[in-house]
């Protein structure tokens, strides 16, 4: 297959809007190729989108669907010759997730949080998501075994447990959510700062985070730790954010990437002492990112209208339910985590929501290096991912931001710096934030770029970058990015003119990290006792079986680094 005459953006390979042909052979980008010719003359061509933080599969998604038939009835599409039926807006069914990502030109999406014991469920859903490649991060932040290893300062055992946990969950990386808070919530409380000890476990969130970060590097995992801060969603929490990031400054990365990826930074960039004097501290956070190099972030941009919040930060969801007088689902997961789901509506005239909206944009615009920023909505917490084109058009057009601000509560002008920001992102920066950076941050070497040998994931839009001025023509940008002219996944055309034309099964990435056998044995003998005494299922029934990954892609890592990939 040859994509002819497109205006190609491939910033990872130093290509910033050049007219060139892209050749595809055997599912990969090649020097030359035959076969089908796709006429992309003058059109915007880029690598397929990569979503590094999205909630697309697992128990909390289904909890959201089950408690929200009101949402499932939105966005209903009947089955077609290619597609199974779609339902839902903030909590779409599995099929809709795959089709909608593909229509946006996205070809990869990672589920951001799965407890090990419920990972089988997550994989059952991932299997049902068509087209996109996917993976799931595994939760470790309130896990009894983790906390006991940290308390005993036994990083060898912890490394073995993390490696085993990733294998058991067929997980891709270490996710930490409100560390220690999930355990404290087991008796209805929370941890209040990174130095607040976790009840009954004699460790602090700071110790948990540092230990997991060190182990993450010891195991040379492709992705860094992926961190949802303590105190997320609370006024004044930007100090917790910076305090936490400071903890990790001296840790050496074992690969060419960050040491910590911060999830949905927007929700942790809050000033004020309460909701009344709530304000943006995005500029302080962005300054910190500008001055350091060990952290990356995704935005967690909010979108006005309905959302469904879902997180392993269960105390936060309890607070949300009370504030919003909303239905509330909570799910505590034995020995490992707790979590919650609460429907939400972001309103333009609500002061807090207006400032939250500004914070996401500020973070993207004030952080100078786009390689440190991934565009997300923390789907569906800030709003559904189908709104990415809206965010792109906002980041590319000051005019659009001004127009939007006119419709919002006026505090957006006094409590954020957004009105004064002139920066408008260009296509290269957008491609970095939606493709190149998330792929590099996740450690996906064959994604996010169009170099020879890369996965042939390509998106082509009905946008002529040489004729259009995104600053003025933001409506065209949004419309064009909403319906890819072509999406090519692994060399297969899956979207043509915004319609799904094929729905192949994507791959599921997971990391197999090797640790010395003696460490593993030592860890397992302690773990067996946990199963005998505390877990409600047997150890032999715990691990995710091969049957749940029909198209796995194993990334090797470990204490003795084994370089590559099957």
């Amino acid at each position, binding site marked *: 297959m040859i994509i002819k005459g497109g205006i190609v953006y491939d910033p990872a390979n130093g290509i910033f809007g050049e007219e060139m042909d892209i050749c595809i052979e055997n599912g990969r980008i090649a020097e030359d190729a035959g076969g089908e010719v796709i006429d992309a003359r003058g059109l915007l061509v880029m690598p397929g989108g990569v979503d590094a933080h999205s909630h697309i599969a697992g*128990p909390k*998604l*289904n*909890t959201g*669907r*089950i*408690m*929200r*038939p*009101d*949402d*499932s*009835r939105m966005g*209903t*599409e*009947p*089955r077609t010759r290619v597609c*199974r*039926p*779609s*339902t*839902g807006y903030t*909590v*779409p*069914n*599995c*099929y809709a997730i795959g089709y909608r990502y593909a229509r946006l030109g996205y070809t990869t999406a990672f589920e951001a949080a799965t407890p090990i*014991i*419920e990972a*089988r*469920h997550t994989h*059952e*859903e991932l299997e*049902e998501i068509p087209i996109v490649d996917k993976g799931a991060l595994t939760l470790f932040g309130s896990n009894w075994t983790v906390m006991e290893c940290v308390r005993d300062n036994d990083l060898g055992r912890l490394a073995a447990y993390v490696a085993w946990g990733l294998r058991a969950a067929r997980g891709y990386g270490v996710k930490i959510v409100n560390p220690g808070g999930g355990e404290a*919530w*087991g*008796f*209805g409380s929370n941890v209040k700062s990174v130095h607040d000890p976790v009840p*009954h476990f004699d460790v602090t969130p700071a110790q948990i985070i540092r230990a997991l970060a060190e182990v993450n590097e010891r195991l040379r995992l492709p992705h860094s730790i992926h961190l949802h801060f303590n105190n997320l969603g609370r006024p004044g929490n930007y100090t917790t954010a910076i305090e936490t990031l400071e903890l990790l400054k001296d840790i050496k990365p074992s690969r060419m990437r960050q040491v910590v990826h911060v999830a949905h930074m927007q929700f942790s960039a809050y000033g004020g002492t309460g909701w009344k004097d709530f304000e943006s501290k995005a500029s302080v956070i962005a300054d910190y990112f500008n001055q350091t190099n060990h952290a990356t972030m995704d935005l967690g941009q909010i979108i006005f209208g309905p959302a469904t919040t879902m997180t392993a930060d269960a105390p936060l969801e*309890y607070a949300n*339910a009370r504030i919003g007088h909303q*239905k*509330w*689902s*909570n*799910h*505590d*997961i*034995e*020995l490992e985590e707790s979590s919650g*789901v609460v429907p939400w509506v972001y309103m333009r005239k609500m002061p807090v929501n207006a400032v939250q909206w500004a914070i996401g944009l500020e973070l993207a615009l004030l952080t100078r290096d786009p390689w440190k920023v991934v565009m997300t909505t923390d789907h569906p917490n800030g709003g559904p991912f189908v709104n990415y084109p809206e965010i792109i058009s906002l980041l590319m057009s000051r005019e659009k931001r001004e127009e939007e601000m006119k419709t919002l509560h006026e505090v957006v002008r006094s409590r954020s710096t957004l009105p004064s920001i002139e920066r408008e992102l260009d296509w290269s920066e957008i491609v970095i934030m939606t493709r190149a950076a998330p792929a590099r941050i996740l450690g996906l070497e064959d994604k996010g770029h169009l170099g020879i040998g890369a996965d042939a994931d390509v998106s082509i839009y009905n946008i002529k970058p040489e004729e259009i001025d995104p600053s003025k023509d933001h409506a065209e940008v949004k419309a064009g990015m909403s319906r890819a002219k072509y999406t090519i996944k692994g060399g297969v055309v899956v979207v043509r003119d915004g319609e799904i034309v094929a729905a192949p099964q994507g791959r599921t990435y997971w990391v197999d990290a090797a640790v010395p056998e003696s460490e593993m044995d030592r860890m397992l003998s302690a773990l067996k006792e946990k199963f005998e*005494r*505390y*877990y*409600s*299922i*047997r150890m*032999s*029934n715990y691990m995710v079986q091969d*049957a749940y990954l029909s198209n796995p892609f194993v990334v090797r890592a470990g204490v003795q680094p084994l370089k590559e990939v099957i």
Partner: protein
Amino acid sequence: MILQIEDVLCTFCGCLCDDIRVEVNEGRIEKVRGACRLGSSKIMGHNRIKSPMIRKDGELVEVGYEDAYRRAAEILVSAKHPLLYGWASTTCEALKKGILLAEEIGGVIDTTATVCHGPSIIGIEEKGLVGSTLGQIKNRADLIVFWGCNPSEAHPRHTLRYSSNACGRFVPEGRKGRKVLVIDVRETRTARNADRFLRIQPGTDYEIISALRMIIGGKADSLPEDIAGVPRKDLIEIADMMKNAKFGAIFFGLGLTHSRGRYKNVDNALSLVSELNSHTKFVIMAMRGHYNVTGAGQVLAWSSGYPMAVDYARGAPYYNPGETSCCDLLSRRDVDAALIIASDPASNLPRGCVEALGEMPVIQIDPFENPTTLFADVVIPSAIAGIEAEGTAYRMDGLSLRLRKLVDTEYPSDVEILQAILDNIRRLRDDN
């Protein structure tokens, strides 16, 4: 040769116990250890349907599988609104095929949940569910409330493995470290083993729960002295038990969902638990009956957006229990054919629905004969999921587990049967 298989899953009730030991000798299960009476009775097995059958002149006549598949396909293709019902006692994989089948034939798919904990799900749609896995309760709960349920008879190992009698990290002494409260109309076996039994009148659950919410919310003074036959002071005492627990758990059963008030009873109980979290830690869980009724809801939810009663007649899923649920569809004659799998509506539905089954073509897929067989026009015997076929099931708390295959069988699995029917349907369509 005798084979010992450890950590086998029991495919009877929603407890989905995964610590059963089974002894297999020459392809037959000889001993079952560690299961309750219900579980061992199921795993040991009994009379099977021997061969596929098709009803001819009022009598079921043995036929080959291919003939049965073809006849089933003909029935489904010619139906304007077929019902595909059951799914709670088979694997998630079977239901996935069933959903595909429903999509292709424009049918309505419903699970036994609608006549079991369907109202609980509607309650959750109103309020959300404050819950946990069973291990969390085992490790932490110092108060266990059984409301309108009787685990001693319906979920016999529940108390030992997960609740009142289990030992856990923060309750190492087990039963002695917990209080058990039973609220029911009958003084059941479970009630006789409780620390406190509160007897209520049938159909008054809603009022009792409202009164408890009043007391928890500090409004006891506004209550009358007597609430649906229960003295206010008794309810104050029970509310105190709840508030003073460090970790409380309510398990509720069909006593709430089958009674007057239906889902509103559950809806109110969910609010009660939600509000108790302003005082202490509390969770609530439905005592799901069939071993995979929870999984059926999960698979339907991620496939269609809805957990039961999904109508694909118009190509896109439509959901509305009371309209698209089995009992209503049958009693109103809104469907014109039925595929019944892994369930027995003839026994479990009101007479008026059973009569409807007698008026329409019925396909039955099941390992065992049951009263539904008396109404079936096509009978397709299947392998027993979790014993003769592997697959996935979800425990009552939403944990998924992999069912093992213990012995070989000549019978096709539910997945294979549904695929064969689907293939026949596609062939019939191509021919036309």
